């Protein structure tokens, strides 16, 4: 080995070592020294409907529902929004569950472009005129994602560990809520929540990818619960309308569906009459 090369190596070896250590520290720092992080995306029905009102006045008129209903369903505009495609998929799932009911004529998915932040009932009235919907289900959400490190994150010092070991723990909490409003009377007819919690581990290199997956899974699970609660609330609302007809007025559009029905009660009364007749017949025969 030439003398010149060994002296150079002697000079550069410590420098190389220092450079390697520094770059390892920097990389590991990228992966691990940020501490717990929080990402939040949310929207609010109240901020959308009453943007500048601290104490909004309650509606005074009685809501009039004309059956069958034309229903709109939309995500309330919010900050750090989820993608339009994701919204459409979730809304389609909700709409599919309520299609085919006799008292629902149609369900329109209202794109986000039709709603503006803080648009209020003025904006909803525009949607009503444009899409011809009477009732709208406004879906709001609040999703918080936490990322923190666990013991495995020490392996990130090896660089390769940042690709292999799940040293990050993700926690995704999602709350969705659908509030169903009669647009004309501005009445909240009923509301239903849906919540989910998704926990997952990820290697440092894949944290962002994992967070996106968890976010989608969180919205999916919350939507499933939301649909179940919406069905429950819808049935409760129907019972409420039957028991307290003054609360909501039900009308039928021209061109209603009619049915001829005699019903169980009528048949039972006829049956009782027939029974009385049979008894009378038996008594008469006994007498004769």
């Amino acid at each position, binding site marked *: 080995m030439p003398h010149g090369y060994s002296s150079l190596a002697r000079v550069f070896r410590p420098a190389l070592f220092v450079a390697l250590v520094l770059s390892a520290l920097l990389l590991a720092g990228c992966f691990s020294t940020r501490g717990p992080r929080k990402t939040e995306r949310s929207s609010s029905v109240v901020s959308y409907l009453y943007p500048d009102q601290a104490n909004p006045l309650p509606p005074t008129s009685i809501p009039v529902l004309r059956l069958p209903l034309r229903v709109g369903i939309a995500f309330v505009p919010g900050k750090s929004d989820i993608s339009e495609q994701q919204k459409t998929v979730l809304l389609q799932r909700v709409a599919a569950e309520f299609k085919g009911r006799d008292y629902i004529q149609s369900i329109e998915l209202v794109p986000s472009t039709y709603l503006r932040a803080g648009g209020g009932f003025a904006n909803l009235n525009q949607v009503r005129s444009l899409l011809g919907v009477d009732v709208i289900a406004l879906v709001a959400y609040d999703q918080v994602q936490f990322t923190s490190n666990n013991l495995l994150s020490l392996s990130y010092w090896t660089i390769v560990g940042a690709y292999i070991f799940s040293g990050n723990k993700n926690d995704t909490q999602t709350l969705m809520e659908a509030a169903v409003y009669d647009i004309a009377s501005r009445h909240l007819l009923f509301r239903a929540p849906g919540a989910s919690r998704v926990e997952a581990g990820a290697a440092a290199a894949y944290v962002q990818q994992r967070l996106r997956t968890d976010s989608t899974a969180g919205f999916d699970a919350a939507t499933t619960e939301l649909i179940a609660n919406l069905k429950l609330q819808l049935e409760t609302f129907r019972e409420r309308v039957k028991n307290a007809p003054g609360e909501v007025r039900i009308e039928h559009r021209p061109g*209603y569906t009619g049915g001829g029905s005699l019903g169980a009660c009528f048949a039972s009364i006829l049956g009782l009459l027939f029974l009385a007749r049979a008894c009378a017949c038996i008594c008469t025969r006994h007498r004769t």
Partner: protein
Amino acid sequence: MKTPPAPPAHAQAFPWASVCLIAFTLGVAAQPALASTLLYERLALLRGEYWRLWTGHFVHFGSSHLFWNLAIFTVASIWSERLAPARTRLLLVVSPGLIGLALFGLDPALATYGGLSGVATSMLVFLSYTQLARLAAPATTNKNEPLATSPTSDRWFWRAVLALVVLKIGAEFALQQPLFTRFAPAGIRAVPLAHLIGVLVATVMHRNLRGFRPRFLPRRTG
């Protein structure tokens, strides 16, 4: 040689018309795809699909709707057909069409209609009239369509049935909602007009066609 006496009419008449219509109703219920072709739909009628005036009655909006309508129709129609076969069969053919026609003419807001109750009401009222006629004047029994004699005087029963039908229709008109029934699917309204037309058709049939017997059928003797 003396001929044996003719058996009573109710023992002779097999209620085939009623059985056919019951089978048709059950068939439609078993094949929901048929409903779209048979249901009373005003727009389709305006397009010229006139059979819907008649067939719409045999389409139902749920199992409960079907069960109770068919239960009353089965009893009333079979009983009536055994007592007065010719007029019952005529009524079974005519009343669905007339009720459908009346709904079309008198209720333009009615977009869709289904249910056998109008026809069942018609049969029930006709049965009541027929029974009352048997009890009131056995001498007036038509020799073309002899009626079986009633074993007991149960006039009160048939009058109560008529009163119940009238009460139901009157209350449904007054309250604008079904009195004794609720439709499982919301958004469907009861149509008391169908029941009223059923009663009117049965009344006209009973009053004006007492001696009705199709000419192609042989005259009864004895």
